[in-house]
């Protein structure tokens, strides 16, 4: 069938600068750049995914990628990308696949929320001169604390549930070995260890070589139960039951057989080359009571030494669901907003299902507080955190900590080309091809991740100091430190924030 699909991008090669070193030819797994018989280099625009690998590695900066502007008769409804998607489906009859998070221009509430700062009546704090506490504990907190004072020493009488200690309120979100390369997993584990925070295995199991990072690893138990065994649960600081994912609420996962090589096969405990299909629901969880059974099975299996988290996608009824999860015995609720990323999802689901995490955090925090059970669980927010400002606003809205993943990938080199599902990631991240995965040197990637989170922590300290707060705990759920611009009354009601300029009371 003659394809009607036109190229999305155009590669411009500045021949004044091109030295024909062929770095672009060697770096492109999509085979865009080619050497012709006479030795000259040419590029095939229609294969380009705009990952910018060639542009970044070109030693003379001779390459630029531009949008290929086809003339589509002016139409706000039938845009070029709408038409392209229809052509793709008309030619294949298939579901449109994509990677990464929702790119549509839905409102980004972070950009409508502004932070407070101290002026005159309350002193701001300089974090370079005074102590600033970013340490956060995740886990169920007791209703009250009983202490015994005898002979000048104080002893805690209340038995406190197991807690995760975070030196920064930022963790690396679930990304499985299979979706991402071993080197990417190792970099995340090493960075999490150095930062005093945690990485998350996703549903990929834990590679034996990463057992040494167990104290900074959260292991996931998802609907496919891939890679789950006794040792897996032991080699973890916390366990996470994955119910849903922000990028694809309500549907399962599918790791294509091509990505299941020897190592992935052993780690996931599935045959080489077989598709790893995670069902949409857990087939043993059809109610909060069922969820409770799994939570307590996992607690039993690990002798009540590790907190158990339940991860859900932010959906319409997120507040009530979270209340159920808290009552089911979870120690942590992870809420993944609709901008959360993925290695592969149907485009229509990624772009249209779920709700923004900003609203979800506020709704869940309010609900749990109203019910008097906020202390029973920690809230971890996920899905599209772009900067330290987003993180601090999430905490002010009521989250205890956040998960970052897309930002972590970008730090390692990802350019959000959304082609993770092809397995041809030129940056060595979302691939199992040994030639591509070695492009990600774990030494460099771990350093870049460390730097990113350290920089965000520094910025969070500065912003906290500016508000006159010396501990992140004091900001948690303190929505008076947020003010809204450009939001409707209803949106502000859900977020629990006042309009900018409104008085304190």
């Amino acid at each position: 069938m003659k394809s009607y699909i036109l190229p999305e991008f155009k590669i411009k090669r500045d021949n004044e600068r091109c030295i024909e070193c062929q770095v672009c030819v060697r770096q492109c797994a999509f085979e865009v750049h080619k050497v012709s018989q006479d030795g000259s280099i040419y590029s095939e625009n229609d294969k380009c995914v705009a990952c910018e690998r060639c542009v970044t590695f070109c030693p003379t900066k001779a390459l630029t990628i531009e949008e290929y502007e086809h003339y589509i008769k002016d139409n706000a409804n039938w845009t070029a990308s709408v038409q392209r998607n229809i052509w793709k489906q008309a030619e294949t009859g298939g579901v449109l696949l994509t990677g990464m998070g929702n790119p549509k221009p839905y409102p980004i509430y972070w950009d409508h929320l502004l932070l407070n700062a101290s002026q005159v009546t309350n002193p701001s704090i300089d974090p370079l001169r005074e102590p600033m506490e970013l340490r956060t504990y995740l886990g169920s907190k007791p209703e009250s604390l009983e202490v015994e004072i005898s002979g000048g020493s104080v002893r805690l009488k209340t038995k406190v549930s197991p807690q995760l200690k975070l030196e920064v309120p930022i963790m690396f979100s679930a990304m499985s070995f299979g979706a991402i390369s071993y080197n990417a997993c190792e970099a995340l584990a090493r960075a999490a260890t150095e930062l005093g925070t945690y990485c998350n295995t996703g549903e990929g199991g834990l590679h034996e070589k990463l057992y040494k990072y167990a104290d900074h690893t959260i292991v996931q138990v998802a609907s496919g139960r891939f890679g789950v065994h006794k040792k897996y649960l032991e080699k973890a600081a916390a366990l996470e039951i994955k119910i849903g994912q922000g990028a694809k609420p309500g549907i399962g996962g599918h790791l294509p057989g091509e990505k299941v090589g020897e190592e992935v096969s052993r780690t996931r405990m599935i045959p080489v080359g077989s598709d790893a299909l995670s069902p949409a629901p857990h087939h043993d969880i059809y109610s909060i009571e069922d969820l409770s059974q799994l939570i307590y099975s996992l607690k039993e299996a690990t002798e009540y030494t590790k907190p158990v988290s339940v991860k859900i996608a932010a959906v319409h009824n997120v507040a009530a669901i979270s209340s159920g999860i808290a009552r089911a015995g979870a120690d942590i609720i992870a809420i993944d907003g609709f901008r959360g990323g993925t290695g592969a999802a149907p485009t229509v689901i990624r772009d249209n299902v779920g709700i923004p995490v900003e609203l979800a955090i506020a709704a869940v925090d309010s609900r749990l507080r109203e019910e008097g059970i906020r202390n029973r669980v920690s809230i971890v927010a996920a899905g599209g955190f772009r900067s330290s400002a987003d993180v601090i606003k999430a905490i002010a809205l009521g989250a205890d900590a956040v998960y970052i993943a897309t930002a972590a990938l970008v730090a390692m080199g990802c350019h959000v080309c959304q082609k993770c599902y092809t397995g041809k990631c030129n940056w060595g991240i979302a691939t199992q091809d040994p030639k591509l995965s070695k492009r990600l040197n774990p030494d460099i990637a771990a350093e870049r991740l460390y730097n990113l989170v350290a920089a965000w922590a520094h910025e969070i300290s500065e912003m906290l100091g500016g508000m006159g707060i010396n501990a992140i705990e004091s900001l948690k759920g303190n929505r008076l430190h947020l003010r809204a611009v450009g939001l409707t009354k209803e949106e502000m009601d859900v977020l629990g924030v006042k309009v900018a300029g409104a008085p304190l009371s």
Partner: protein
Amino acid sequence: MMKRVYAKEEVCIGCRLCEVYCAVEHSLSRDIIRAYKYEQPKPEPRVTVEEKEHISFALQCRHCDEPLCVEACITGAMMKDESGRVIHREEKCIGCWTCVLVCPYGAPRRDLSRGKVVKCDLCQSTGREIPACVEMCPNRALVFEER
């Protein structure tokens, strides 16, 4: 003991930028665009990336303790200096390619345009402390160290 360049095969991405920067470093202008586009004779790299399937690594003169090339060189162009480097004195080279034949690593390269051999001098001639290939490798796949 001397510092040598070692390749970390597990993170070599086969981009061959080491070759590019080596050639530029040993060019007349030491400017990448001028060197490649306008210089005659064309600048030659002293390093070669060996590649098969997903395995690749950059290879350059190993600066052997007992170099066969020095033993074999019929004009005395190849010599081992007091620091331990194997250096190539171009003015004495007649392009007989004996060193090319005897080197077990295949390190000396023929510069056909000038009829002379070129080989890694650990960037001694260019006054760098760390060889260009090591410093410019985008994936830290080359290290310069004593082993």
